[in-house]
C-alpha cells in the first residue's frame, strides 16, 4: 500500500460521509412519500411521519387499487409503454442499421442522417404539431401517444454508433456465406448489440411511462389518460373526484396518504427496473458517445 498522508486520510473519511449523505438526499424524498402512503390518515394530517410509517396501514393502497379510474389509467400507461417501445425500437433499429453504413457504400447516408438530426435542432412547435396530429386523425386515440414521437433521433444516433462497433469481420463472414442486408441485420447485428438495444429500450420505456404532456393535449376524455397524465391531473388540479374520494368525505379525511400511494405506484416500475439495467445504460452511453 502506498503511503497516505494524514490529511488525505481525513479527506477520505469526510468524502465517504459527504457522498453517503448526498446519496441519502437523493432517495429520502421518495422514502418519505412511501412512509406517508403507509401511515394512518391521522398521522399524515398531524405531520408526524418522517421516514418510517406511523400507524401502519395499507388503507391508502386499498383505496387506490379499488379506484376503477386509477386502474384504467394504470392499464393505459402499461399499454402505451409496451406499444410505444415496441414500435419505436423497431423503427430505430431498422434505420440505425442503414445509417451505420459508410457514405462511400451507401451514398445518401449523410443526407438521411441530417434529415433525422435537424428536428433535434429545430421544430415547428407545440401548436403546429398538435394540428398535424389532429389532421392525421390520431387525436383521442392511443396512437397519438406512440406514433408522433416514435423516431427518437437521440436514440437513433446512440444505436448507430453502437452498430459501428460491430466488428467488420463478422459482417464480411456473413457476406461470404451469402447473407443479404436483412439477414446481416437480424442474424449478426442484433444478437451482438443486445447491450445497446437494452439501453435504448430502457430510455424509451422510461420516456413513455413518464410522458404526461401529450396525453393532456391529445386526449379529450380523462378516461383515456395514461397513468402519468392521470397523476398530473390529480396532483396539479387537486381533483378529489379523480383521486377516488367521494365529495362528502373530503372534509374529514386527508387525501394525502392516497395521493402518496398513487405517486409511489407511479414511481414503482421505474425504481424496479433501472438498477438492473444500470450497467447497460452506463456502457451504452459511453459506447454511444464514441465518435464516428
Amino acid at each position, binding site marked *: 500500500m502506498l503511503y497516505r498522508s494524514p490529511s488525505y486520510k481525513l479527506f477520505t473519511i469526510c468524502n465517504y460521509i459527504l*457522498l453517503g449523505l448526498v446519496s441519502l438526499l437523493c432517495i429520502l424524498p421518495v422514502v418519505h412519500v412511501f412512509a406517508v402512503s403507509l401511515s394512518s390518515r391521522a398521522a399524515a394530517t398531524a405531520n408526524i411521519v418522517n421516514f418510517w410509517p406511523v400507524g401502519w396501514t395499507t388503507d391508502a393502497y386499498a383505496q387506490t387499487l379499488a379506484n376503477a379510474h386509477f386502474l384504467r389509467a394504470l392499464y393505459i400507461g402499461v399499454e402505451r409503454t409496451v406499444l410505444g417501445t415496441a414500435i419505436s425500437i423497431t423503427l430505430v433499429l431498422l434505420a440505425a442499421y442503414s445509417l451505420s453504413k459508410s457514405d462511400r457504400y451507401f451514398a445518401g447516408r449523410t443526407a438521411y442522417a441530417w434529415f433525422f438530426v435537424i428536428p433535434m435542432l429545430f*421544430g415547428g412547435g407545440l401548436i403546429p404539431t398538435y394540428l398535424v396530429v389532429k389532421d392525421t386523425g390520431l387525436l383521442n386515440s392511443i396512437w397519438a401517444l406512440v406514433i408522433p414521437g416514435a423516431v427518437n433521433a437521440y436514440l437513433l444516433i446512440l444505436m448507430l454508433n453502437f452498430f459501428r462497433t460491430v466488428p467488420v469481420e463478422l459482417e464480411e463472414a456473413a457476406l461470404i456465406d451469402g447473407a443479404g*442486408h436483412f439477414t446481416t441485420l437480424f442474424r449478426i447485428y442484433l444478437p451482438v448489440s443486445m447491450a445497446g438495444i437494452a439501453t435504448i429500450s430502457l430510455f424509451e420505456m422510461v420516456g413513455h411511462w413518464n410522458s404526461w404532456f401529450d396525453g393532456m393535449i391529445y386526449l379529450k376524455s380523462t378516461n383515456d389518460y395514461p397513468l402519468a397524465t392521470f397523476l398530473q391531473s390529480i396532483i396539479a388540479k387537486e381533483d378529489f373526484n379523480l383521486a377516488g374520494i367521494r365529495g362528502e368525505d373530503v372534509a374529514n379525511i386527508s387525501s394525502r396518504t392516497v395521493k402518496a400511494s398513487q405517486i409511489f405506484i407511479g414511481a414503482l416500475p421505474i425504481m424496479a427496473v433501472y438498477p438492473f439495467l444500470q450497467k447497460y445504460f452506463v456502457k451504452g452511453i459511453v459506447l454511444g458517445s464514441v465518435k464516428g
Partner: protein
Amino acid sequence: MRETGIPTVPAPSVTRTRSGRFVSYCRRTWPLHLLLLPAFLITLTYQYFPMLGAVIAFKDYKPWLGIWGSDWVGLEQFRYLFSFPDIKQIMWNTIVIAVQKQILSIVVPVLFALLLNEVSRAAFKKTVQTLVYLPHFLSWVILGGIFVDVLSVQGGIVNRFIGMFGADPIFFLGSNHWFRPTIILTDIWKEFGFAAIVFLSALTSVNPNLYEASEIDGANRWKQAVHITLPAIMPILVVVSTLALGRILNAGFDQIYNLYNPLVYQTGDIIDTFVYRVGLEGGQFSFGTAVGLLKSIIGFALIVTCYRILYKVADYRIF
C-alpha cells in the same frame, strides 16, 4: 469512417455508364432505403409538416378556415407579443433560471465525479451511483407531487427540519423570493448524478501509471487532481459546456408547469409555460406559434453557433 464488409468487386464494363451505375447502386442499396422508409415517413409527417404549419405564426389562424385559408397578418403576432406588459419579465425569468441551471448542471456533476473517483471501495461507489441516478428517471409529475408534499409550508418535512433550528417555515413554492432557488436546486438534485456519468467514464479511462509516476515525482493527491485528473476530463467538459450554451432558453417546462402556481408567476413564469397558457389553453393558436417559433429560431442559432465552435475547437461531431 469505417469500411463496410462489402468486398469491392471490379465492375463489369457494361455498368460503367451513368444509368448503369445508378442501377447497380439501387440493386446494392435498395434494402437500406427500405429499412429507413418507416422512420423517414414518420419523421416527415410529425417533424417536418409542423415546420410548414408554423406559417400560422404569420397568419390569423381560425380553425374553421384551416392553415392555408386563414388571413396573412405578417408580423402582427410578434408585435402583439412585445406589447404584452409581462413579456420582459417572462424572458428574464427564462434566462435567469436557465443560465443558473446550466452552470450548476456542469459544476455539481464535475465535483461529484471528482469526489466519487477518490472512492476506492467498489461496493460503496456502486451503491452511491445507483442511488443518485434514481431521480433522473422519475418524471416531474411524480417529483412535483413529492416536492409539493415535502416542501409544504404547513408541516412539510423540510420545514419541520428547519423548524428544529427555530427558523420560521419557508413557503418554498409560493413565495417569489424562494421559488427560483427551489426550482434550480430541485433540478440539480434530479440531474447531477446522471450528468456525472460522462465525467466518470472519462476519469476511469485515465492511465493509472500517470498517478504512480507522479507519486514518485512527489506529487500529492491535490496536485494529481489538478495536473492529471482535471486535464483528463477537459475535452468532455468543453463539449458539455458548449452544448449547455445552446439551452439557455430552456428553463424546463415540465418542472415549472408541475411546481408553479399563480402566486409565483412573477418570478417563475417562463416562455414555455406562457405559450402553453396563452396559446393552447387560451386558444390563441397563431400567437402561441409565433412565440414558440421565435424561441425555436433563437435556440437553433445558439446550437448552430455552439456546434461550429466545438467543431473548430474540439473537432467534435455528433454523428
